């Protein structure tokens, strides 16, 4: 498959860009932050996105979705990354939709996918329990209780966990933290007894929470996929999230870079545009090269998810690691090249640096994925 966007995907990108520039520029995120908005995104805007088919971009048409595939989802994530649009797109439309599409039984799909497509339900994926990502480290217990399970434990860094209607949570039905076997995914109603969410105000001003599960009861119908065999299934879902985050970071990095290039062309010091200084030109040209590399791996990861979902682990790690490093560099160079103004809250570039910092940490930072890649490559 050619490593380029199809005409249909390009059209999706162009229309998304137009819509987001108008409806969800960085100033919209700033407003949410200044209002200390509990939801973390605009529900009206999310509804509009759903009407355009974005919320159900990965959902089959039989469940009200547009079924555009992962490349399509990545195109939207990238455009939202450009404008730092706050929405439950990652948590709900990429992670939950993938989990339900790939792992859900007929009843689960029937119940939840149409709501996702319609923008009527927000989902959250709860995996991490410690400060660094590691699904295999899952310690949260799901003990046998009658015909079902009782879930107890804490989760952290749960995107949109403070407003989610439903939570997909990884818990241990067998084995010990560190074991690959014994992890099971549950689909839990956020209103269930014993679930509490503590909203965590994060550096990027996006919605996130710490969740507490205190003897939450679940039945066999709430299991997503297979009991005990959930790690591989979870990794599949996480890979989709990693590729989505890579695409988002790619968009953010490109936007920060574009702002920086504009600034180099207009800001004057020593009687001339600072962009004429070779010290800055070479750094800009290097960063440009890195951004091009990031775009290539990100697109490849999304294409591989579409074409051979189960085999995409290594390329998604590659994309997440590369995008994390490049976006971080883009943010750092953006602030540095803007000089003092880059340090001010009034100027937008800081929002990019903050969101990129969060996105590169989520579901494994560059070091996590470099390690994972080395293991898969036999060293």
């Amino acid at each position, binding site marked *: 498959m050619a*490593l380029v966007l199809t005409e249909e995907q390009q059209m999706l990108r162009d229309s998304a860009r137009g819509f987001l520039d108008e409806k969800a520029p960085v100033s919209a995120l700033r407003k949410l932050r200044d209002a200390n908005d509990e939801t973390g995104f605009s529900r009206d805007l999310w509804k509009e996105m759903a009407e355009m088919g974005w919320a159900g971009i990965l959902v089959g048409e039989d469940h009200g979705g547009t079924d555009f595939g992962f490349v399509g989802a990545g195109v939207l994530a990238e455009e939202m990354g450009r404008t730092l649009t706050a929405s439950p797109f990652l948590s709900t439309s990429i992670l939950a939709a993938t989990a339900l599409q790939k792992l859900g039984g007929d009843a689960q799909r029937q119940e939840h996918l149409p709501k996702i497509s319609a923008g009527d339900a927000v989902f959250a994926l709860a995996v991490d329990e410690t400060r660094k990502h590691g699904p295999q480290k899952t310690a949260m217990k799901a003990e046998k209780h009658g015909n079902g399970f009782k879930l107890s434990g804490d989760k952290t860094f749960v995107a949109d966990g403070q407003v989610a209607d439903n939570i997909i949570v990884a818990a241990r039905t067998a084995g010990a933290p560190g074991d690959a076997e014994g992890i099971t995914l549950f689909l839990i109603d956020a209103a269930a007894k014993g679930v509490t969410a503590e909203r965590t105000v994060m550096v990027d001003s996006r919605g996130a929470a710490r969740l507490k599960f205190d003897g939450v009861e679940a039945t066999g119908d709430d299991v997503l996929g297979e009991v005990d065999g959930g790690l591989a299934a979870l990794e599949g879902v996480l890979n989709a999230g990693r590729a989505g985050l890579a695409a988002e970071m790619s968009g953010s990095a490109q936007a920060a870079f574009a702002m920086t290039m504009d600034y180099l*062309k207009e800001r004057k010091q020593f009687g001339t545009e600072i962009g004429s200084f070779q010290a800055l*030109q070479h750094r*800009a*040209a290097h960063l440009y*090269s890195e951004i091009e590399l990031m775009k*290539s791996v990100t697109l490849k990861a999304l294409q591989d998810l579409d074409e051979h979902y189960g085999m995409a682990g290594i390329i998604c790690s590659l994309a997440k690691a590369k995008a994390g490093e490049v976006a971080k560099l883009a943010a750092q160079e953006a602030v540095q090249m803007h000089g003092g103004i880059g340090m001010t809250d009034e100027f937008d570039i800081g929002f990019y640096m903050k969101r990129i910092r969060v996105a590169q940490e989520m579901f494994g930072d560059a070091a996590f994925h470099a390690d994972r890649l*080395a293991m898969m490559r*036999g*060293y």
Partner: protein
Amino acid sequence: MSDLETFRKDARAWLEENCPAEMRDGAGGEDNICWGGRNWKFQSEAQKIWLGRMAEKGWTVPAWPKEYGGGGLSKEEVKILKSEMRDIKARSPLESFGIWMLGPALLKYGTHEQKLHFLPPITRGEIRWCQGYSEPNAGSDLASLQCKCEDKGDHWLVNGQKVWTSYADESDWIFCLVRTDPKATKHNGISFLLIDMAAQGVSTKPIKLISGKSPFCETFFDDVKVPKEHAPGIGAIVGDLNRGWDVAKYLLTHEREMISAGGGGLFGGRGIGEIAASEIGLEDGRLADPMLRGKIAQAEIDGWAFLLTLERMKDEAKAGQGVGANSSLLIYYGSEFNKRRFELLMDSGGSEALEWEGERTQDGKLARSWLRTKANSIEGGTSEVQLNIIAKHILRLPGA
């Protein structure tokens, strides 16, 4: 069966019958190249037979027109021929600066007579060409070159020096950038001149490099008389007088595109991690040197991302998207990456990689290759020049 399928079938059958078994070992590397030329000594009878048969077929330069000794093949046919050659691991029958550089320049800027005169001997490996561009005081700033070329009526009189002329000591002819109008602005007084290395006053001196090898020379011109016509109607200058910079620029772009298209070749063979694992060993499934392991993993990520970028840009070009100046990006990143890769291979090899002579290391093969890579970011435009090109032509930064 479509025409292309028929072509594939015929090409396969022809290669099967005509490619000698010894030429099917897939051997690449500078030591196995057949360069041709008046003084060429074939490394084997098979090498000679292979060149002869391919040249007769026009397949040493399959894309060139038939009347100039090429194969007259379309782009698609060339691709098929190359893939069929790869399938039987056939060596390239002939490589040379005539094929890579002079040929494309003549095909674009030469007269029909010049093409008829100069191209066929290149395709048959009879004449070996070298390139005279750089001078001691004209490296990255190539257009400041000073090699003097005066009009003496029936001939040109050339005085000056070239440097970094690849294999000048083994070449038969040289294509040179010379200054024909010292009064014009620097890009406007340069001409593209063809000189027989056997002419009186031409001398060469190999330059020994840090790798111990001498692929480059200094080339001197002392009162060299170059006839205005090498044969009746065959001009010594390619393109218009004083417009040699156009030819040079075209070739530089062509060279960059060629290097960037072939960039995948940088990564032939085993991965860095795999090599390091076999040399250093594993502990609990991880490379026994954890700090080095991290660096290697980072490098593999970048290397992989680079290969995907080559692929993407090829696909974009095919789809009519993309940016032309991106070849500078590919050269910049590819050459810097290759240097980094060899640093890591040296790290993995440890003290053993430092042995310069002896059978154990094939006379320091890795160490010499490592040193060779240092030229990657200098030859054909330094990394800094490539970054300048990106800044100017892609980012459109002021004053660049």
